[in-house]
């Protein structure tokens, strides 16, 4: 749906984006990750045509990105804001008319969404009278009202309480099911694991990792397991199978973390242990996105 090709963006004395390329597949939720100041916002501003790249290009549905695509993109910036003195209904109407909706159509959809999110009574309220979380909800509605094919959310959950964050998350998933593609910029990894199909990791203006979440996680599995057992066992007995990274006493059981040597399977480890101890638990250590993120970023730095 969206191809970013060799984008370079140079500011006065720092390069915000250095030859960044990525593919956002249609109908997926794409996570754009990276520490603060990595260049995420610069990239988003290029996709939303707020700024232009110094070189490289963006292809939207097979065509070079131009102003005709504005109506097909919805953008919720990290720095949120609304006209403080304007009434909510009027404001969302204004924003969606700027995206090309007619007054009648926009009014219909605003009513639908306000009802859906329990905001019916807000129509005549002024923005300054709403709490920050309520303002965010209004802005979310304004972002998706024109039913864009591509929805770009920059830190969408910051400022939401858990209840509202959950409501918004479900709306995102529902819209995604209906076919909208999302780009989702964040550094909160738990929401990435919950929502994203694909990710790209940007650090110091370069893309350092991308792919589907499952593939990346697979890549980072390193044959490590948690095993909890009851009974006494001399761990030197499994030294040939792998390395014990950690040992811990939990009440009357022992918890160990073992990284198996290449070619060894967990079955062999179990076979070695079973005659001597009672196994309570076995888990594969799957790296979280958080671990991968920290690992990758630290390596580069």
């Amino acid at each position, binding site marked *: 749906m969206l191809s970013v090709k060799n984008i370079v963006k140079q500011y*006065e004395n720092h390069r915000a984006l250095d030859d960044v390329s990525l593919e956002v597949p249609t109908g997926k939720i794409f996570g754009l990750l990276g520490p603060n100041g990595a260049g995420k916002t610069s990239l988003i*501003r290029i996709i*939303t*045509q*707020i*700024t*232009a790249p*110094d070189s490289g290009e963006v292809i939207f549905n097979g065509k070079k990105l131009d*102003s005709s695509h*504005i109506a097909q*993109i919805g*953008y*919720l*910036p990290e*720095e*949120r*804001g*609304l*006209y*403080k*003195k*304007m009434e909510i209904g009027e404001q969302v109407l*204004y*924003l969606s*008319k*700027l*995206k090309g909706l007619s007054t009648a159509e926009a009014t219909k959809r605003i009513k639908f969404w306000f009802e859906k999110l329990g905001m019916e009574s807000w129509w005549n309220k002024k923005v300054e009278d709403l709490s920050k979380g309520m303002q965010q909800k209004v*802005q979310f509605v*304004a972002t998706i009202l024109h039913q864009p094919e591509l929805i770009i959310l920059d830190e969408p959950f910051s400022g939401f309480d858990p209840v509202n964050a959950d409501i918004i998350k479900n709306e995102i998933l529902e819209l995604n099911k209906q076919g909208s593609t999302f780009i989702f910029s964040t550094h909160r990894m738990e929401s990435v694991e919950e929502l994203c199909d694909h990710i790209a990791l940007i650090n110091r203006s370069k893309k350092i990792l991308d792919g589907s979440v499952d593939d990346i996680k697979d890549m980072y599995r390193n044959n490590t397991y948690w095993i909890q057992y009851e009974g006494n066992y001399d761990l030197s007995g499994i030294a040939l199978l792998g390395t014990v990274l950690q040992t811990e006493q939990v009440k009357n059981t022992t918890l160990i973390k073992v990284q198996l040597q290449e070619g060894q399977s967990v079955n062999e480890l179990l076979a070695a242990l079973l005659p001597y101890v009672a196994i309570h638990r076995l888990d594969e250590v799957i790296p979280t996105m958080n671990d991968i993120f920290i690992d990758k970023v630290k390596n580069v730095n």
Partner: protein
Amino acid sequence: MNKILLIIQREYLSRVKKKSFIVMTLLTPLIIAIFYGIIIYFSVKGVNGTFTKVAVINENKTLTEQLKSTPTFGYTYENKSLAQMKADLGKTGYDYILYLPDFKLDNPTGVQILGTKQAGLTLSGRISSQIENLIRNQKLKDSGLTQADVDKLKSDVDISVKKIGETGKEEDSSAGAATIIAYVSGVIMFMFILLYGIQVMRGVIEEKTSRIIEVMISSVKPFQLMMGKIIGIALVGLTQFILWIVLTASISTVAVKVLVGKEEAKQISSMQAAGPGKQAVQAAGPIGDIQKSLASLNFPKIISVFFFFFIGGYLFYSALYAAIGSAVDSETETQQFMMPVMMPLLLGYALSLSVVTTDPYGNIAFWLSIIPFTSPIAMMVRLPYGVPDWQLALSMLLLIVGFIGTVWMASRIYRVGILMYGKKTSFKEILKWFSYRN
């Protein structure tokens, strides 16, 4: 284009619907009308204020002429002695005692004003000038002139100023009326450009600080947003101005009727007809003159030129204000950038009201009214005195070129500035933005 219209609509409606706009629009004409009414009221009733009763004790043998009472002073000649009058002052109801001792007419000394209250400078000044007149008349009569001859000595001169127009025809004109119109339109022009220019700046800062800007420019081009705001606010200004004219005119008509009443209204009209009585001539002289020459001024031309220069000057300056607004994070930071933008406007204002009104055809007046930085004010000040058409056309043309220039410049600064948060901006940096590619 459709998007610019939407933006103009929002900028216009959100301001016109504000309470402060409605209050200002309604209140200002009311205040102007009340001022106008008060001025007319006093010009009819006279600002004479209190009536002062003065007892005159004349011990001068040579001074046979007597002081005549005027609307403000009542002179009564008493034959009592000064000491007796002093003692009875409280009972007799006089405000002051004027004591004229036996002086020589060539050397009047020892005149006294006595009273329970201290006589003010104005009061003693008026009385002394009346005594001076009295002595002059006495001397003239002593040299053998009759009362009729003395009356004839006084003659009022009313200079009729005519301007020879380009066709060679004489036109009634009056420097007085032209100056009033020049001042009024100069001041209004200055006020409007400043007031609405600053509104543009505030609007830009508001969008920046409330962070709506990023949502906006992912939907519209920065240039569209800037122009939409500038045009929307210009329409607010025009609406307010037209309402002020209409409301002021109607309220002051009513106010004159209420405050002045029918009788005095007749009096005004008879005074305007320049009645023969001396009192009437004195009052009607300047007012009648101004009204005569007001009629000779080409108002439709002045008003339409005013609208042109208001729009032109406003566009010229508001684009600069928009650029300033985009470069800062809050209004307190605008100071350093405001100065260079305010200076030419202030200079134009100050010079227009001093140099141009005293020498409306001079070199300075010419250049001020041609250069776009000062022309909106200077040209309005010059206009009532008469400006050759080619100069007016040149000035208008340069103003159009000027505002296209400032709008272009401002849009280049604006598109970069609006996305810069939290940084203190310097002039050097703004110059760099200028050459940024997008």
